[in-house]
């Protein structure tokens, strides 16, 4: 059953305005939190809610917040990751365009919890409309005395700035995002030190995804227990599932974590288009290993997907039907990773290009019998061996597509 938390205002006219958001009780939670809860209590509440990062890695949000050292004498920064660029993913864009104030309220609560005085919202440069909506929303919130300096509540002030990206997927990786805000190219940083200790401008920093933060007001409003009960044992709450590809109703659907993939495809997205059969489903955006038609009863949560060798990722479901060429699909995905590899570390820089070259050669009808194994081997040498997760992101699809649909990587005539 679909549950509307983050998406609850989307259907209302002018849902992006402060007026409409307030009509639905908006900013009341922030006000109450500031008045009645300590930052520590907020962190604990979020911890208990089992909220996990909705950007892709699924790290427990409350725990992330609790890593921020207090009293270092340095400012604490909150960075909002709105660099949504994972192919198939459009959930954050919806929030930014349809209900930016829900995000801002979440940002306010998070900033209060971690003691951040400044926040940067790292927005994809291509998000023109979302940018307008968010900037307008910030202006409205500041004018209404909800954000900014010198707020009525002296416990809390927050300056929030929008920082636009410029067409680099890697900046969604949190340390590359920090580099980018600092005015550099998006080369991920080596860890340790972790951003919580030494992040933006050398200060303690928390980086949270848009959807993650949009969940926060609901947790504080209705309580951790309520939120956690919506999901599975280890993954609390609902998740936005952007569904695209060969389905009847592509769109954004909100379901509790643990909802079977099949339910989201059939009930939410209206099943496979043109009455075709499913050949495969990418369950969490371009970097998540593909599932076969036999595997789509899997519950959509972090652990269940890991168990079947894939990931929840951004939750973006891409449905591939029986007529879809797996060779062409993988080539499309790998071209993306090759284009977006930052070039800093060897296996990703060289491996992504090599993979594309091999796939292009197969697609040109010049495949060799050893190519599938070669692809698997290149991917194996990238997975787990790169500086940031992009190497894994590029390797996962190769390993799953080639293993599960091996024949399509042997005979190009069959698959095109």
């Amino acid at each position: 059953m679909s549950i509307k938390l983050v998406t609850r205002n989307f259907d209302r006219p002018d849902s992006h305005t402060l007026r409409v958001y307030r009509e639905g009780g908006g900013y009341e939670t922030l006000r109450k939190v500031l008045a009645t809860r300590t930052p520590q209590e907020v962190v604990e509440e979020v911890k208990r809610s089992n909220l996990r990062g909705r950007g892709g890695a699924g790290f427990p949000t409350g725990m992330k917040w609790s890593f921020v050292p207090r009293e270092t004498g340095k400012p604490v920064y909150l960075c909002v990751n709105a660099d949504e660029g994972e192919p198939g993913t459009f959930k954050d864009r919806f929030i930014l365009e349809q209900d930016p104030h829900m995000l801002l309220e979440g940002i306010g609560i998070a900033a209060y919890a971690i003691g951040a005085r400044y926040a940067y919202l790292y927005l994809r440069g291509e998000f023109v409309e979302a940018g307008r909506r968010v900037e307008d929303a910030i202006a409205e919130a500041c004018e209404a005395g909800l954000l900014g300096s010198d707020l009525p509540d002296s416990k809390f002030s927050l300056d929030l700035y929008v920082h636009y990206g410029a067409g680099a997927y890697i900046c969604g990786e949190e340390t590359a995002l920090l580099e980018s805000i600092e005015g550099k190219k998006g080369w991920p940083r080596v860890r340790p030190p972790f951003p919580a200790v030494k992040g933006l401008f050398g200060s303690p920093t928390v980086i949270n995804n848009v959807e993650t933060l949009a969940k926060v007001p609901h947790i504080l409003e209705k309580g951790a227990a309520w939120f956690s009960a919506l999901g599975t044992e280890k993954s609390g709450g609902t998740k936005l599932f952007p569904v695209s590809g060969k389905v009847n109703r592509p769109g954004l659907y909100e379901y509790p974590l643990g909802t079977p993939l099949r339910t989201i495809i059939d009930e939410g997205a209206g099943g496979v288009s043109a009455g075709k059969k499913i050949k495969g489903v990418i369950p969490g955006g371009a970097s998540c290993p593909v599932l076969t038609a036999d595997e789509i009863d899997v519950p959509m949560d972090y652990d269940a997907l890991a168990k079947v060798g894939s990931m929840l990722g951004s939750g973006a479901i891409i449905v591939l039907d029986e007529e879809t060429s797996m060779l062409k699909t993988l080539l499309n995905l790998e071209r993306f990773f090759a284009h977006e590899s930052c070039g800093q570390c060897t296996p990703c820089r060289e491996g992504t290009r090599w993979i594309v070259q091999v796939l292009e050669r197969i697609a040109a009808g010049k495949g060799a019998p050893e190519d599938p194994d070669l692809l698997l081997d290149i991917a194996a040498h990238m997975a787990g061996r790169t500086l940031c997760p992009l190497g894994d992101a590029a390797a996962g699809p190769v390993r799953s597509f080639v293993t599960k649909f091996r024949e399509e990587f042997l005979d190009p005539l069959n698959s095109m």
Partner: protein
Amino acid sequence: MPTLMIDDRKITVEPGTTVMQAADRLGIFIPRFCYHPGLSAVGSCRMCMVEVEKIPKLQTACTTPVVEGMVVHTYTEQVMDARRSVLEFLLINHPLDCPICDKAGECYLQDDYMEYARYTPRYKETRWKKRKVHILGPTIVMDEERCVLCSRCVRFLQEVTGKQRLGIFERGARSVLSTFPGQTLTDPYCGNIVDLCPVGALTDRTFRFQQRVWMLRRGESICPYCARGCNIAVDYNERSDVQINDRRVYRFRPRFNPKVNGHWICDRGRYAYRFIDDARRLREPMLREGKRLVPSGWERTLKRVARRIREVLDTFGPEGMGLILLPSVTIGTARRVRKLFVDDLGLTRIATGPSIDPEADEDSILLRRDRFPNRGGLVAAGFPDGDPGAVTEGVLRGWATGKIKLLYVIGDDLPRFFEETSSFSIPSAGGILILQRSMEGPEDDFARMLLPSAMTAETAGSFVNFEGEEQTFSAVLPPLEEALPDEEILGRLSLLLGLKGEEACRHENSVEEEQG
């Protein structure tokens, strides 16, 4: 202090040490491209991955801090597989032109391939074509196809010189190292990036195609071109059949010394290697006959020098002779000068030079404005420090006014010595100028005797740098042709002056060396 095990060997290190540093300390070599002890660790080449027990993924040794009880393995099958695969990735675009590459013989890629890889190439696709001879600056040329994008050069300029003059542009496999479009690399330290480059991407335009590195021998010396006294390696080839233009020395490179120069040297010192076999070197002792200086052999020349000194001293007393001792000589030479000219002959008019070039660059990295390597050593040998400028003035005035009848100059770089006073000439009253040095100079026109000395790399001795650090070095090469070390020239001279036997000099010298 955490204690860890690397390949079954135990080591205790300071907190914050990385696995790479601990392994280096144990002498366990972990291959690397991007890691360099003098630069920040970025973990980007992925060559140094090792197995750490209880961590499922391989870790880069250069960025992994040690923790108590850590157990590291650098030689497992998984590690070997990672090394092989990183090399395979790096060699995808490499032109494999070792036979014509200057780096061959000291290239990490070549060495590591032989050590860990030796696979049958599987890459059958089209290689990128990139620029082969990209001139980055007056001394450095780049081969983009050989570059492994380790960013050592970028980080060196950024972190050591503080100026980001090189960048890696574009991204992914298209990434390319270059200067800002249209800019050339003229940084006074940029020679270091050639040493730093682990592959054949950056090469030195003065070294290119001159020698295969395995033909070179390595000697150790001290750079004599400023008061820092950087530790250098002298790469030379004495086999005349493979020398180019009779050149013996082909490059200077830095030698690590944390107390003096760290890992680096400046280009001024680096490219001074060329002076050793330069056409302007003085090659044999010469005496003036009329307008010409004529090669005369050591015995005849030094006898003439001794006779002139005796004549002047006998006629005018010690006041009639002046001596300029430049701080480019060794402590041993300075002591010898003191013994011979001060103690035995009673000279008072001795200058050691102002010679701090006010125009010269000085920075917080290495370069010192004082261009001489042994000012402290002269003080140690008993020459006045104080205000040498005034002493120098006195000597020069005495020479210009004809009070000094004979001026003996020991050491190189005389022109700079006179920069602030006047240009050097023979006073109208006449005078005898004796120059003992290694390079030709404009003053040679006035000299009555030229005594060719060995250069630092051809000499044993010691210098005291501006921070008081005494550094001893031995001769890397024999002196060029008939040139001799200053100390030996002075020893022979004192024998001819009947002051002290050569044997005694040699003995004293060896005692000093043992003590040093």
